[in-house]
């Protein structure tokens, strides 16, 4: 009986170690893949701003940039993040002049410039909304390694919703990728990070 119990414990311990090992390997592998994807980010786009003008990534050089991909029919993650970005801008005070927040729509069919204008104005006067033809948006997202996908959903408005990358990208004044703030990073933390850099 005792021997059996010991044997069972040994088996359980080995199984546990095996599981942990597998988990650690999988996690580090994913981190590596993620890190190399992040290192490859080279923002490159030609899009239409909510004001109607055509812009590229070069328009915002000279400022730190906070870039978020989303869509205006998004009732939860997008307004929450854009509200955080607005709080960050207000929290930066004078230094906010050196920061350009950008909201890039990954739902270009619905988010025409006029719709973007109405939407971004509700959050912060400095926020610029970018959209474009679907191909232009796809190229923009690809250059950021941002993911999005249309999800058919019969009861959603127009029969679909979008899944998308939820992180906020920080670019330096040379337009180079610095790091991501994951969804839910408190505005105060972002303000602190930016104040150190500005």
């Amino acid at each position, binding site marked *: 009986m005792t021997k059996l119990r010991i044997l069972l414990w040994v088996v359980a311990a080995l199984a546990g170690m095996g599981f942990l090992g597998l988990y650690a390997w999988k996690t580090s592998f994913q981190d590596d893949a993620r890190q190399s994807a992040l290192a490859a980010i080279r923002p490159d786009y030609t899009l239409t701003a909510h004001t109607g003008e055509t812009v590229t990534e070069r328009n915002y050089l000279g400022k730190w940039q906070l870039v978020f991909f989303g869509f205006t*029919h998004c*009732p939860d993650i997008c307004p*929450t993040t854009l509200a955080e970005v607005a709080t960050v801008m207000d929290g930066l005070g004078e230094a906010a002049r050196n920061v350009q927040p950008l909201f890039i729509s990954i739902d270009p069919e619905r988010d025409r410039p006029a719709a973007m204008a109405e939407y971004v104005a509700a959050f912060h006067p400095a926020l610029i909304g970018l959209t474009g033809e679907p191909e232009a948006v796809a190229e923009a997202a690809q250059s950021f390694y941002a993911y999005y996908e249309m999800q058919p*959903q019969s009861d959603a*408005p127009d029969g679909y919703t979008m*899944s998308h990358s*939820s*992180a906020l990208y920080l670019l330096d004044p040379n337009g180079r990728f610095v790091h991501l703030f994951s969804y839910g990073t408190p505005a105060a933390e972002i303000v602190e990070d930016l104040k150190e850099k500005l």
Partner: protein
Amino acid sequence: MNTASKALSIALLAGFFFAGPGKAESTQFGDLKVETPWARASIGTARPAAAYMTIRNGGSATDQLVGVESPVSGMAEIHKVKTKDGVVSMSPAGPLPIGPGETVALAPGGLHVMLMKLRQPLEKGARFPLTLTFERAGKVTVDVPIHGVGAIAPEK
């Protein structure tokens, strides 16, 4: 910030929220208590809006939130946001079970009442009725205050 102080600040923050605005806006309904309902202002009526709240089950049996409706919306549903590898997606949550003694929070980044086909814009400072249908407890209507479009938590 180390883990201990993070845990402490989360605990303090949680305490603050429960002690704070929760008291003023709660509806006791049989064994259930609906606390701090709130919604974000909408931009016009073309896009869906979201409402949030906390539901406590003080009883000894599981109940389920099976439906939501409001005169401001032609179609309302409980939706859930899932995050996988940094990608968020949203889908109808289906019936929402609340076990005995459990609390279910509808909050940004998780569950929300998705108010589609808005019949009128949700304007900051106004309120609207929202009827929740529970499998056991039946229907209860709560009065939902509308906060700014940039609100991320219930305001006092």
